[in-house]
């Protein structure tokens, strides 16, 4: 809330105009919209597509779309998709190869013109998730070209969080409901009070300033700024969940043989939903496609998950055949080994994996149980030590 000066206030018409301006720039505007009993992310034609008057009630393994009397548009928590659906799509062609009648092979790298996106309503947790995927997919020695192009071309409109859900725990992952720092073009904060339904706008980039200049808006007033800050500050204290306040890397490292993995493995369906909904999970497998003649071949990327037995298939069989080892891979990667690989946690506390797990397995509860088990173990060892 603090680093960028507030620069304007939009009303619903202003929001509509903003969508028009971005579409007129040739962008595909993606935002929240109601579909099939949930608020999903999809292409938005106008502000009418946004979920005005809809919210969500979530619990572990449960999501319900609920009407909101206040008409709020950004007062809902994470649906089953994240922005990775667009930046890191579930299936993408890498190259194709042709064999000519004389037997010569030609390989063509797939290099389509990438969609220029505008994302409307990116939560602070999801902004952090995008930054994490940037490091994974666009950084390093072998950046993913398609991702990088889509990412550089994307216009990000953040929406600060004023209504955390029961499965949210971003604060305990070092984040929070406020958008601070950089990494966005515009940041909105929804305000609903006697002053009306409006959005405080902050500018985060040149492109953001240009877009805002193109739409009717009022200058930021102290009242709106105060109300916005108060709503976001209140959200910070209303997180539905929290990670145990311990060093998670050490906890995971010292829990590899814990009994808790058996307990969670008995409940886990190994269905892969958690990794698919997670905004930072990036794993893919390659798909080799040939046609019946064998003269045309293609290589595609498609989302994969460490819950797939084939994911760890090496010569002779899978390395992680048991559910225990697969759940452990997911949790230890998210909370611990991600640091070694990419220098941060792999979890931003968005709560999606908790909400969208059909059996409601809760990453914070599992971490807490592992912590309790380790604490018990350490107590026991200490007792033995003193008895000697």
């Amino acid at each position: 809330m603090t680093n960028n000066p507030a620069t304007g206030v939009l009303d619903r018409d202003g929001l509509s105009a903003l969508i028009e301006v971005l579409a007129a720039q040739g962008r595909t505007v993606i935002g929240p919209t109601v579909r099939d009993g949930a608020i999903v992310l999809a292409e938005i034609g106008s502000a009418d597509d946004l979920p005005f008057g809809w919210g969500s009630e979530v619990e572990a393994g449960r999501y319900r779309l609920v009407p909101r009397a206040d008409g709020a548009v950004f007062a809902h928590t994470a649906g089953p998709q994240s922005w990775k659906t667009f930046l890191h799509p579930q299936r993408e062609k890498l190259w194709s190869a042709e064999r000519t009648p004389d037997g010569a092979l030609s390989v063509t790298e797939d290099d389509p013109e990438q969609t220029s996106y505008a994302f409307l309503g990116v939560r602070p947790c999801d902004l952090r998730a995008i930054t994490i995927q940037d490091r994974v997919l666009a950084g390093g020695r072998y950046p993913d070209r398609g991702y990088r192009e889509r990412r550089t071309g994307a216009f990000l409109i953040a929406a600060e969080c004023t209504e955390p859900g029961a499965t949210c725990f971003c604060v305990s992952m070092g984040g929070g409901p406020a958008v601070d720092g950089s990494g966005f073009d515009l940041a909105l904060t929804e305000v609903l009070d006697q002053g009306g339904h409006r959005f405080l706008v902050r500018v985060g980039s040149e492109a953001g300033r240009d877009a805002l200049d193109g739409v009717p808006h009022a200058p930021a007033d102290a009242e709106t700024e105060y109300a916005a800050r108060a709503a976001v500050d209140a959200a910070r204290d209303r997180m539905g969940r929290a990670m145990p306040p311990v060093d998670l890397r050490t906890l995971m490292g010292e829990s590899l043989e814990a009994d808790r993995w058996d307990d969670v493995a008995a409940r886990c369906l190994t269905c892969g939903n958690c990794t698919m909904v997670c905004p930072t999970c990036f794993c893919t497998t390659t798909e080799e496609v040939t046609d019946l003649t064998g003269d045309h071949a293609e290589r595609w990327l498609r989302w994969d998950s460490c819950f797939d037995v084939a994911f760890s298939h090496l010569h002779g069989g899978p390395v992680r055949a048991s559910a225990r080892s697969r759940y452990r891979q997911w949790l230890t990667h998210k909370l611990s080994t991600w640091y070694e690989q990419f220098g941060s946690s792999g979890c931003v506390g968005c709560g999606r994996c908790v909400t969208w797990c059909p059996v409601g397995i809760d990453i914070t509860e599992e971490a807490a149980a592992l912590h309790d088990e380790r604490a018990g173990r350490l107590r026991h060892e200490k007792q033995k030590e003193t008895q000697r």
Partner: protein
Amino acid sequence: MSVPTLAVFKLASCDGCQLTLLDCEDELLTLAGEVRIAHFLEASSAVTPGPYDLALVEGSVTTPADAERVREIRAQSRHLVTIGACATAGGIQALRNFADVEEFTRAVYARPDYIDVLATSTPVSDHVDVDFELRGCPIDRKQLLEVITAYLAGRKPDIPDHSVCFACKRRGTVCVTVAHGTPCLGPVTHAGCGAICPAYGRGCYGCFGPSGSPNLRALIPLLHRDGMDDRAVERLLRTFNAPAFDKEVRS
């Protein structure tokens, strides 16, 4: 190199899976150029004798005659692929495995002594070695083409055995269990259909049988929570792949 021969056989089944081959309209001509269709009664009564390079077998083994026949088919086929829930799991007719077949024949037929059936309906792999099993009731057209194409290219078919949920999420469907409390077998069912049912707001019926690592015991309490009693759960699991799911319940 001579063109490989393709043969399609049927045991106890509804013919729907082999129909999938005829349903490959756009690819049929190309396929006819890449293989010689030597035995496919649904398409042509002209039959060439074996051996065959690639045999697709539909249907389950329900009679002593079928058990004998499937051994003959195996002996004549270099590469044998079973297609569909009947051939890979016993099919809907495997419901008899949980009942008394003699009692059925007495109740249904005027002359039960004319009926010569086995007490169980079993997958082809219970009788002979099978090179690949393609699941589904019916099988998926694209997957069938993938199996044939992979065979022609001499590679492994890309038929993942993870859950339907993978496909459901890739497709961007809102989970019917989490968002609506609708019972769904997706988390324990083998992918392959492209998660059609949840995309239309229905739970998965398990047409493709158990996934590569199903945890039915963890799912059943959820089916109960969403309004199914024991009988309803049993019925849900006992459709096209009853013996396969039954084995998982017992494991």
